[in-house]
Each structure stands twice: as structure tokens, then as C-alpha cells.
């Protein structure tokens, strides 16, 4: 984390120094704030690193997982939730909101340890269809219908 903050700071300063000056009346231009923020990130990244080195982190976050109320990191759970989000990104414009949302729903439920994909799919379909109708009918916010367009079109949506 501290390295990440430091890296962002260095990256931001590279960009900041390539921005034009263009100060105008104020004498400072669009590159001033980026420089300040970049400098701040570098300082804070270093500060976090020293805290890490001197053991200051342990005060805030106990080393022991049980004390934090956690179990060991579960890769499958993390991967399933991520997979659901990626599936939705891939599907939402082609297959439409409802199908993408159901795919997301099933994957996330699986990630949280559900062993009943059919129940999840059923609940997901009801939820996604309900949301779709609420948005399109009541709120006038368009959502992609995708492959279900003939169906929703026939239903007058």
C-alpha cells in the first residue's frame, strides 16, 4: 500500500511536470495543483514506509487474522466475485442488462459459498427483471435490452 502511494506520487509528478504552465493572472496554471498533490503523495508514501518499517502498522491492524475476525484469504471466493464483475462488463452491451446482471448474481453468490446455482439464477432473474422494468418504465432511464430485446419489446417496454 505504501509503495502504491509512493508510485502514484512519482507517476503523478511525471505527468504534472509535462503539463503546460499557462498561468494567466493567477501566476499559477493547471500544473500547479498536480505538482502539490504529487509531492504530497510521495511524502506520505515515504511516511507510510517508515511506519511499516518501524512496526507502526501493527497498532492499527493486528497481525493475527482471528483478531481481525478473518479467516485465511480465499482465492476462489475472490476470483468468483471478480469473474462475475468481468462477465457483466463483457455481456452488458451485447446480451443486455438482464442477462449480464444474472451472470454477475450467480458468480457473486458462488463466491460467497452458495452451492445452489439454480436458486441463485432464479432469484437473479426476478431481481434483474424487476430492476430493469423499474428503471425503464418508471424512471425513464434506458438500459440495454440486448438479446432479450424482442421479448421486452413484445411486453411493451
Amino acid at each position: 500500500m505504501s509503495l502504491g502511494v509512493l508510485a502514484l506520487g512519482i507517476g503523478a509528478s511525471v505527468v504534472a511536470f509535462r503539463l503546460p504552465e499557462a498561468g494567466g493572472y493567477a501566476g499559477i496554471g493547471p500544473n500547479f495543483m498536480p505538482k502539490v498533490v504529487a509531492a504530497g503523495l510521495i511524502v506520505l508514501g515515504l511516511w507510510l514506509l517508515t511506519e511499516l518499517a518501524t512496526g507502526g502498522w501493527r497498532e492499527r491492524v493486528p497481525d493475527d487474522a482471528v483478531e481481525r475476525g478473518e479467516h485465511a484469504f480465499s482465492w476462489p471466493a475472490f476470483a468468483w466475485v471478480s469473474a462475475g464483475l468481468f462477465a457483466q462488463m463483457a455481456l452488458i452491451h451485447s446480451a443486455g442488462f438482464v442477462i449480464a446482471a444474472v451472470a454477475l448474481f450467480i458468480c457473486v453468490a458462488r463466491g460467497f459459498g452458495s452451492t445452489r446455482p439454480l436458486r441463485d439464477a432464479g432469484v437473479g432473474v426476478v431481481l434483474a427483471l424487476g430492476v430493469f422494468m423499474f428503471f425503464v418504465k418508471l424512471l425513464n432511464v434506458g438500459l440495454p435490452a440486448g438479446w432479450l430485446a424482442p421479448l421486452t419489446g413484445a411486453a411493451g417496454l
Partner: protein
Amino acid sequence: MIETLSALAHGFGVALQPMNLLWGVVGVTLGTAIGVLPGVGPALTVAMLLPLTAKLDATGALIMFAGIYYGAMYGGSTTTILLNTPGESASIATALEGNKMAKRGRAGPALATSAIGSFVAGTLATILLTLLAPVVVEVALAFGPAEYFALMVFAFVTVAAVLGASMVRGLAMLFLGLLFGLVGIDEQTGQMRFAFGVPELMDGIDVVVLAVGLFAVGEALYVAAYQSRVVETLEKMSGSVWMSREDWKRSWPAWLRATAIGFPFGTIPAGGAEIPTFLSYATEKKLSRHPEEFGHGAIEGVAGPEAANNAASAGVLVPLLTLGIPTSATAAILLAAFQNYGLQPGPLLFQSQAALVWGLIASLYVGNVLLLVLNLPLIGLWVKVLAIPRPLLYAGILVFATLGAFSLHQSVVDLATLYVFGLLGFVMRRWGFPVAPAVIGLILGPLAESQFRRALSISQGDPSVFLTHPISATLLGLTVLLVVVPWLYKVVRERRALARERGRA
């Protein structure tokens, strides 16, 4: 005073129009329904529901938001009492006694005292808001860019550095938020910054995407990876929902004291409701005639913090409406809701959009009544929401979260950004970094920058302007003191401890 009352009366005229009343009911109901979900705090509720209002007129949308804001707050307390998983730091104090009461079969009175206490404190605090807002507006009209900049810096530092557990963590997250705030077109020169040629980034990073990513996606990834195998216990709703005469007698003074504590804390930039809830808890514990009950479910310990939470939430609206300064993550998202309609809260809004502002304030009164009327009978329904199995619950939360981000621009880029912020939120949650400073940095950063540059433009580039204006100089001085004094205190204390040990050796 008379002017305020007539403005407020006019506001009620706006808030009680049938359509606006309907939006108020929808807001309160949705806010409670989403806010009651475990792990969903008020900030996330408001962020997820922001896109719902895309097609409403500004007044209707903001009235709905006022309902969502109060509803989310109330829904969170239900979860806290029955599940002992506070959705936000301001609910932790409620959890201490509330969950104990539920364990002893007194969930009903605990929920009732929190509902009625929220109503009492919310209404009293809204009256205070009504009286105080015009006064602050008078003062704020004299503020120039230098004063605003100093005020924003002050808000940044209190929110990020002073209130969190660790100053460096809060500041790091604040600067991260500031960096995200820089992305997009520079308002004053049209210069593109940090967009890397991605057209979707030109408009900047939307606060909804950041807040939903950090709160919802980050939380879901974290809970899935680290806590999905932990079993939670839901307390059953048993016994009467009604409070006994004794309960009333013990709750009343707690509500009133908590309002007196909560409201002032809400109005200063002090990070919202967290501190006053703990102060109220400590006060009630000290003053109670039944101190032995504390830790085993004392009703004052629920009534006080819950009322303080609501009073502070109303207090937060004072700097938000009169100065345009958000002092909590939720307020930052409300500010974004204003900006969606091209409105910038501040003293000028009270003049140019008087009907909207006073309609909004009036709808806070209405919202409080709606909350009480809707929720006392519906407690049973909200309890059922809590019984949803966790896989389905989080799957549902993510459907709503992605929907919120996607419906902003119908863009997959927003979904990808959402996932990136989700990863960031995951890391922050795991290693204990606060989220609120990042959200406030994103929304307030660009405003602070433009005030800063405006101030320098007026002074022809002379930076001493921030120190020669008395208000600005005072605020900046206070800010420096806030950072330096605790640090000095720590250094001196460590030195002394070291010296003592040497003396012993």
C-alpha cells in the same frame, strides 16, 4: 426570523405538493430498504441510489435524496441492533447496547427507542438547522475565494488527519482522492489532465463510481475473501415493539441530551456523526441511574447514540447547504447530487434557488414524520430483509452497485473503473485505511483548486492574500495547529517516556 418563517412556509408549500411528497415517500422507503442491508452504510446507499433521480426535476430529486439520507441512517440502526454489524462507524455506539438488548429479547423496545429517538432528534436538529442556516448564510456572503479555500483546507485536515485513527493514513487517502479529482479537463484553462487520452476520463471521475467502488465492490471482495466462512447470528425479533412507561422515562432525557451533543458536532467540519455518538454514549453511562445495566443492554445506551447520530446528520447539512462544504462521505455524495443539476450549494443558492433550498429543508421535517409513520409498522418487514442469505445479499448489492455506475453514462469504462476502485477498496479495508477522506478529496479537491486560483487571480498572483485576510488566516492557522499539536504532544510524551526509562536504567 419572520423572513425565515415565511421562507420555510413557502418551502412546505413546495415539499407538500403531491408529486414531491411522493418522491419523499419513495426516498424514505428505498433509503431504509437499502440502508438496512448489512454492510451498506448511508454513504453507499446514497451513492447507489443517486442514478435513480437522473430524470427527475431538481427539487423532486433533492427531496427524494433527503428522504434517502434519513432513511438510510434509520435502516442502518436496525441492522446494527439485530445483527451487531455496524454499517458505519457512527453506529458502533448503538451496537454496544442495542445488540445486547436484542440478545435479551428486548429487540422491540430497542428498535422503537431508536426510531422515535431518531424522529425527536431529527426534528429538533432540523429546527436548529432552519434557525442557524440563514445566520451562516449572512456571514458566508462576505466570504471571498481566499476564505473559501482556507475553509476547505481546514475541512480536509480535520476530516483526514485529526479524526481518523492515524493521521498519515487519513492524509494518504485524502491525497489519493485529490489526485482522482484532478483527472479530466481543467475548468479554467481547458487543459486535459491525467486522462491519458481515454475519452471517458475527460469528464473526470464520478463520485458515484469512486464511492460505490470503494464501499460496495471493495467490501464485497473483502468479505468474500476473508469473512465468507464466518457465521453470523441474527437476533430474533421477540416481545413487544412498544416501549414500557419505564423505557419512555429513560429514553426522553437521553434523546434531548444527544441532540444537544450531536447537532453542534455535525455543523463543524469534524467528520460527521462518529464522535458525538460516542460522547452521547459516555454521557448516558455517566448520568444513568442504572449504570450496572450498561454492557448488558441499557436502553439509554441505544436512545442516546441513535439520537446523536441523527442530530449530527442534520447538523452536517448546515455547512453543506450554506457553504457548500461536505464534512462526511455521505455529504460529499449529496453535494455531487446538487452538482448533477448544475447547482452549487452555498450562500448564493439561498437567494437564487430559495424555493428549492427551503423546499428541501421543509422536506426534512416531512421526511422525519414519514420515517416514523412508515417504520414503526414496518419493523417486521425490515427484520425479514436481514434474514436474506449472505450469498444472495451480496450478489444483490453488487447488481445495484454496478447498475448505479453503469447507468451514469451507459459505459463499460465506468464498470472497469468501478472494479479498479473495488480492488483499491479491498486493500484499504484489509489494511485499515479510511474511505471518507478519499471521497471528500475527490469532490472537494476541484472546488478548492478553483477557489485557490481565483483568489490568486484577484490578488495578481500574490500568495500573501491567504494570510492578510483575517478569516482565511485564522482558519489556516487553526489547521496548522490541528496537525502540529497532536504530533508535538506525541513526540514530547515519547521523549519523556524514554527519559524515564533511561533514568531507571
